[in-house]
């Protein structure tokens, strides 16, 4: 167990290494990204085993949500790196003769990534891709709640990445607390809003910028759809996003569904049918559903269902097995809105269906609650679409599907309000770990003599024209043909 002193010495060593310029060049950054690529290829089996052990994930789920997505991101970063690293020219007005301006991205320095347990590889390595592409040195703190994954990262990363630039620190809340007290050039945190507040408060001591990827209750709004085939696609996508991504333990999983009352029974029947098709008659046996990560969360979810009014609203499922930490896919119809189930982020395989008179009421429903990380809307109605985008606020909005925004490299992934601040993925990852430095280069040859004191009205008039980019005015004033304004 390292002492605080040891740890600070290590960090200073990393800062030294950074200051030596070792991480700045494109070739170092590419080598790190390639190292990650090789890790993902070569260690897939071990990663699958760790995810199975910690979360009961099936390899296809692991690949779809973590390994495959990371491979895509590594390749994308490798392909884009040169462009990302290059300076961006800034437009200058004509008056700025013989002057150039550009924005140069530079690394921030020593950054901290704190990851979560539900997608332990994805949420550790996706930010890492950005931090390394941007040329930083990194400390990664994986979640102890997924211990096998955490120790795999600690063991394996040094073999594929520059060990002087990337360190993994394992441990629980005490270690995290110690870590955030240090001086970092950036912190990217994925987790709960409660801990997010503590991270930001600690960062404030050092004026450290933060990206906080938090959560919330992501609603799915299900409008009436034209035909049964489309309805089935919608239902599959909803069920897939709830039950088959870490059993609903995902920040962008659908938390609850909003639907018009007249449609609720059809919806229910469709859901029951598709749950059997996707997860089989015995979901626990089928290994197509992850389990609850630990007893803490298991009991948290169990307690949500113990509220008698909530229990009464269960229309499907509800059975739980403490030994295997398994909760079967559960659907509830109109549980009370003040219940814990409808107030806190569920983060589990319990799916409330809330019925509304009109589907447009979903807008007020959503707006009267904290801003979620994502809103999902299944509709053909163009005006509902426009209203949803214009009148609600969330990290993102996805139409006719769920969770897919996660794999889009060109879209910023992040929250707003209680669901977070800042974003990443694709170029946004590179940017979030960079400082965009403004650089102006001037020539000695051209200057405006009227820049300098002593001041007089003549110079003031010149400036007035200058600032309006009134070149003719400047000329006239210089020639003495335009008099200064007297207010």
């Amino acid at each position: 167990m390292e002492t605080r002193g040891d740890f600070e010495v290590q960090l200073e060593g990393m800062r030294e290494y950074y200051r030596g310029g070792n991480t700045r060049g494109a070739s170092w950054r590419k080598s790190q990204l390639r190292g990650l690529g090789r890790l993902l290829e070569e260690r897939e089996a071990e990663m699958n085993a760790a995810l199975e052990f910690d979360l009961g994930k099936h390899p296809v789920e692991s690949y779809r949500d973590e390994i495959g997505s990371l491979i895509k991101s590594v390749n994308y970063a490798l392909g884009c790196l040169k462009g990302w690293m290059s300076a961006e020219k800034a437009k200058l007005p004509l008056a700025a003769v013989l002057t150039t301006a550009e924005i140069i991205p530079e690394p921030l320095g020593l950054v901290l990534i704190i990851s979560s347990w539900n997608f332990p590889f994805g949420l550790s390595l996706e930010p890492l891709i950005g931090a390394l592409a941007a040329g930083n040195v990194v400390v990664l703190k994986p979640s102890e709640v997924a211990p096998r994954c955490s120790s795999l990262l600690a063991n394996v990363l040094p073999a594929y990445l520059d060990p002087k630039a990337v360190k993994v620190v394992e441990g629980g809340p005490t270690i995290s607390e110690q870590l955030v007290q240090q001086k970092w050039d950036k912190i990217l945190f994925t987790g709960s809003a409660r801990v997010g507040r503590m991270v930001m408060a600690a960062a404030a001591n050092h004026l450290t910028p933060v990206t906080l990827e938090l959560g919330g209750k992501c609603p799915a709004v299900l409008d009436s759809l034209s035909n049964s085939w489309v309805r089935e696609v919608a239902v599959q996508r909803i069920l897939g996003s709830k039950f088959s991504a870490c059993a609903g333990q995902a920040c962008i999983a659908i938390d609850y569904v909003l639907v018009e009352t007249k449609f609720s029974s059809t919806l229910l029947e469709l859901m029951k049918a598709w749950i059997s098709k996707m997860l089989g008659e015995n979901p626990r046996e089928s290994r197509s559903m992850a389990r609850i990560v630990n007893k803490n969360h298991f009991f948290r979810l169990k307690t949500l269902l113990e509220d008698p009014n909530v229990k009464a609203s269960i229309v499907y499922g509800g059975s739980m097995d403490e030994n295997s930490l398994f909760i079967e896919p559960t659907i509830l119809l109109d549980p009370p809105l003040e219940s814990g189930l409808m107030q806190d982020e569920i983060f589990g395989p319990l799916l409330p269906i809330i019925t509304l008179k009109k589907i447009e009421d979903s807008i007020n429903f959503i707006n009267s609650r904290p801003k979620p990380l994502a809103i999902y809307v299944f509709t053909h109605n163009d005006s509902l679409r426009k209203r949803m985008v214009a009148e609600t606020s969330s990290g993102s909005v996805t139409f006719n599907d769920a969770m897919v925004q996660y794999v889009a490299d060109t879209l910023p992934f992040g929250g707003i309000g209680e669901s977070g601040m800042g974003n990443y993925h694709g170029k946004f990852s590179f940017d979030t770990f960079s400082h965009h430095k403004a650089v102006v280069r001037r020539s000695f040859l051209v200057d405006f003599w009227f820049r300098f004191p002593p001041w007089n009205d003549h110079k003031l008039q010149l400036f007035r024209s200058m600032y309006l980019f009134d070149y003719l005015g400047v000329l006239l004033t210089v020639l003495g043909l335009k008099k200064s304004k007297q207010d």
Partner: protein
Amino acid sequence: MAGEDKKQQPFDSKAASSLVAELRGAFASGTTRSYQWRESQLRGLLRMTDEHEQDIVAALRSDLGKPELESVLYEAAMLRNSCKFALKELQRWMMPEKVKTSLTTFPSSAEIVSEPLGVVLIISAWNYPYLLSLDPVVGAIAAGNAVVLKPSEIAPATSALLAKLLGEYMDSSSIRVVEGAVPETTALLEQKWDKIFYTGNGRVGRIVMAAAAKHLTPVVLELGGKSPVVVDSGINLQIACRRIIVGKWGNNNGQACIASDYIITTKDLNELETFYGKNPLESKDLSRIVNSDHFTRLTKLLDEDKVSKKVVYGGERDPTKLQIAPTILLDVPRDSLIMNEEIFGPLLPILTVDKLEESFDIINSGAKPLAAYIFTNDKKLKEHFVNNVSAGGLVVNDTTVHLAVHALPFGGVGESGIGAYHGKFSFDAFSHKKAVVYRSFMGDAAIRYPPYTNGKLRLMKALLGGSILGILRALFGRS
């Protein structure tokens, strides 16, 4: 309405909370979101600045002794330009940005939509009190937010003028000014805002960010630091000096966040006399020190034992008029007070080094400043400087001019700040970039869902790998 009530009752937590509630109601009604509203408010700011330029100049003279030209140039004209630029670009800024989608989400289309954050708090500084209050307001309005502005009480005439004018020219259902000092600012900081924009020093910046953390409020902090000027030999020294001088003493007598704080060179400079005449204290072209606290602070820097003998020019001061003459010091010790805090005044230490490259180490060993400057004709030195000195912004062969370039982000890094603004960066600072994906019901991949099989795994690998051939192979069961 506006700032008048505050004289009647104290602006406490309760008042702050009801102010925020009122503005939230205004924001929720959708008033601030339309292009028309934003445009009308920006035009209001423009008219206000045009019609009251003399009042602004008078307020700045009262608060800071600021010369008219500096007020017109660095405050009024710059604010006007900001408004005009925003008006010109607003429609474009408000449009969603279409983005490419890839095979992984095929078929789909996507865009990034800019939406206002909601109700924002802008806390301004005293040295450019008109500009630093309203420039962020331009961004907040352009982005469609409701705004509370808290101008600095250390520039009271400007603060009162802003309260009066904004009350007259702006839509007071959504734009308000709260005047006051620490108690009022504290009451404001207790509330939940959708963004806080603060200009000032690092000590208060930390307080602002800690308060923001309680509500998960994102912040922009425009702070300061010691902006160094590296001066090489083999350059046109006269021009360099002029530029340095106007960048220091022509900018509120050195009380500016991007004023040159100190010089590192292998030579020394001596152009000052030409500009300010023989008796600089009498010069009307220089701002005075803003108040006696800062006057005392600055004289303390000058009078420190190890420093007081290093004055090579100037050093005169008049406590009654709060004036300090432009002062140059040579080779003060690195551990002196003057070399360890942001000077923010008309004192310019010059450090000499043997080799200019040493200057980079000196700069990098301290906190990252808001700006850093170098005067040189040596191409290699220029590039080395640009690539290795980290600061908010850099200028080669001049000082402070980057402030006026709309296309450049203006902000710090590390101790000098978080976030940036100016031009489109202002609009972005006060916007949420919302990702919107439009998916079709077609093209569903059963491979996404359970039951999971090896065939699905193969296909998925091919799909995420993005190779058409790979996909075909997987579909036909051969990979």
